């Protein structure tokens, strides 16, 4: 889509990331906190893709180095998605285990690791 500046995409990504940070700080439900972490990961993905498209390059077309720099952002997005999937599976498993143990998942009352 031509005519859209890079800053517009970056602003959307930054807004989503900030919303995720605020959600992690103020919410008490661990599942919603997980959703906010997903929001932050997606904001980073959007930033990666925006920079991948609007990158500043002066290398000639067809150059191998230019090709690899052009694809690097999308490769990072693929790996971030895979790590996010693994993180969600394990994290929700932990939440299930804690809920089975205590019947209460209020994040402010979890102080098992405080010692």
């Amino acid at each position, binding site marked *: *889509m*031509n*005519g*859209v*500046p*890079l*800053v*517009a*995409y*970056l*602003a*959307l990504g*930054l807004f989503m990331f*900030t*919303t995720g*940070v*605020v959600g992690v*700080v*103020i*919410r008490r*439900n661990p*599942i*919603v906190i997980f*959703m*906010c972490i*997903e*929001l932050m990961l*997606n904001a980073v*993905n*959007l930033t990666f*893709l925006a920079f*991948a*498209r*609007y*990158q500043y*390059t002066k290398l000639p077309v067809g150059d191998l180095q230019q090709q*690899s720099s*052009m*694809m690097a952002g*999308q*490769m990072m*997005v*693929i*790996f971030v*998605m*895979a790590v*996010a*999937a*693994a*993180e969600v*599976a*394990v994290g*929700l*498993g*932990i*939440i*299930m285990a804690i809920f*089975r143990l205590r019947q209460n*998942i*209020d994040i402010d009352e979890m102080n098992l690791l405080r010692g």
Partner: protein
Amino acid sequence: MNQSLGGVTITPNLLLFGALGGAAAMAAVGVVAFNNAVRSALCLVLNFFLLAIVYFTLNAEMMGITQVVVYTGAIMVLFLFVIMLLNLGAPQLLRDREDPKRWLGLLLGFALFAIVAGQIFPSLLSHTNIGAVDGYGSPQAIGRTLFTQYVLPFEAVSILLLIGIVGSILLAKRRI
């Protein structure tokens, strides 16, 4: 239609992006603002779907398809499934109490946005030229790069996913 606003030309594409991005931003706010976990999850589904369309506008078609399949398809179903299993649909179970942490968090968010935006945006404000060539987001290009230059990280990620599967089974099972 070509008016200039602060150095940025207003085009129909920019208006379209504004609509998409505004809806995605409102959905993101909804994730945090709703007290009900199911409503938060549905807002997150909407946000991910709009984000996939934004990826399409960035010519990253393969990433947009992957976003729909992986996030809105798999991860959000997992979230809704856990919410259903824990029966968190009832909002009175975990109502967010009024405390100073909420205003502190909002203040922190505004400060973070202002600091990062103030540092990054002024220097990139006039950057509109597109460096990527056509077809850089096609499945062919991604597959060729993923299985030649990035084959070692790809294998590492496959091991990570395997460990994730085993770990979630271990955590979810009552007794091995």
